[in-house]
């Protein structure tokens, strides 16, 4: 029963979040601020993850290819497809659920505890719209851009490590990646990323906005935001794959 209660509350929150804003110009400014916090501040961690994912996947794939009958460009095929279809969208979003999700939940939870959200409501501001809407919009715009950067960095790291270790030449790697590249797969990866971004921002906002209690509960809300976002990302990953692939 608790699940249905929270799900209903979540839907009501989304309805209030996407209602007409008081002033578009102010909301645009808020979106830019959130895009900076979510996107620019996450670039470093996404870059580090992507580079290592690309390098490790290339080495692992090479290790598995023990047969001399398989051309080396297969490494590029496997790494390219894995990175675009799964590794970049899912692993990066799981990490972003931790970084961005906990940030959002903690920020809103702290505002709830210090009555800042009550102050907005008392003034007649649609606090859900003012606080949550910019976060969701910024997330679904910026996180896919981060994933595109991640894909590029992972594949580049794969090329780099392949050349350094002599596993595969850059030309063979790129040849393999291009051979298996499909627009459909790439579009599917972006659809997944939009879904994950929406889940991270909305679920974390829900946990922070509706928490009650003191500083311990803020921490618990932040933890719940991360855990629920991660579980929903994995669940939606499976469902989308089942539906579209």
């Amino acid at each position, binding site marked *: 029963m608790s699940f249905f209660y929270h799900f209903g509350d979540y839907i009501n929150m989304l309805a209030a979040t996407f209602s007409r804003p008081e002033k578009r110009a102010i909301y645009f400014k808020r979106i830019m601020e959130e895009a900076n916090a979510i996107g620019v501040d996450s670039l470093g961690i996404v870059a580090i993850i992507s580079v290592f994912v690309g390098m490790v996947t290339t080495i692992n794939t090479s290790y598995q290819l023990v047969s001399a009958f398989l051309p080396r460009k297969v490494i590029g095929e496997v790494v390219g497809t894995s990175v675009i279809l799964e590794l970049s969208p899912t692993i990066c979003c799981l990490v972003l659920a931790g970084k961005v999700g906990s940030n959002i939940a903690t920020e809103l939870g702290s505002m709830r505890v210090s009555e*800042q959200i009550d102050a907005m409501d008392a003034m*007649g501001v649609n606090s859900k719209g003012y606080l949550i809407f910019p976060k969701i919009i910024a997330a679904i715009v910026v996180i896919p851009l981060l994933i595109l950067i991640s894909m590029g960095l992972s594949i580049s790291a794969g090329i780099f490590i392949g050349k350094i270790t002599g596993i595969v030449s850059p030309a063979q790697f790129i040849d393999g990646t291009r051979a298996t590249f499909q627009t459909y797969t790439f579009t599917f990866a972006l659809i997944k990323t939009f879904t994950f971004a929406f889940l991270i921002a909305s679920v974390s906002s829900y946990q922070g906005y509706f928490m009650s209690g003191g500083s311990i509960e803020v921490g618990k809300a932040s933890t719940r935001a991360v855990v629920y976002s991660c579980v929903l990302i994995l669940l939606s990953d499976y469902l989308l794959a089942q539906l579209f692939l």
Partner: protein
Amino acid sequence: MLKGIDAVFKEGKTNMIIGGSGSGKTVLMKCIVGLMEPDGGTILYDGRDFTNMHPKVKRETRQEIGMLFQYAALFDSMTVEDNVAFPLRLFTKQTPKEIKDRVDFCLDRVNLEKVNNLYPDEISGGMRKRVGIARAIALNPKYLFCDEPNSGLDPQTSIVIDELIKEITEDFGTTTIINTHDMNSVLEHGEYIIYLYKGTKHWEGTKEEIRNADNEELKEFIYAAQFAKEHHIALLQANKKG
């Protein structure tokens, strides 16, 4: 929590809700402002049924309300100037210069200078309360709610805040409702007082009537406040002699 509270606050006056901790003062105020939904009953603002208003109309009505929270509830990611300007930027069509002038007027009205660019954690508790008042009056509200405005303040600053609220009530003609358990404040400024006890309205009247009230719980409440004050004075005098 609350039962059978029936009260009509006086327009343009300083109304007070008093009672011990846990008597329901803050819950009552949050119900009146719409931050909590009552299970029953009606809240009227000049005859308008606030309880059953459409959410959009309710939000518009709230623009007539200014509220000072117990710990000021300033937005900590914004400067003092941005805090006071916040409702003006959202709800008015004023130019940036007009908003700046209004912000300066409000801060000047609460006797704050040179704090515009400071953040809430860079100013004292008393200053935060005054910024909270400045923000509450920015839109020239018809109704001003103050939830324990003296909470956490030293006696001198408490008096300053009380005087400020009183002046604003008189100058702007607002209907002010204050939650407090500070009897000094009540006896000095309360023009209409309701006393809550265990979630019910136990007494109502003026500051002139309160001392002679024959309500036992109210008498104990006033006595405790008076005892605490006199005990404190006695301690100070003992320390002086010693």
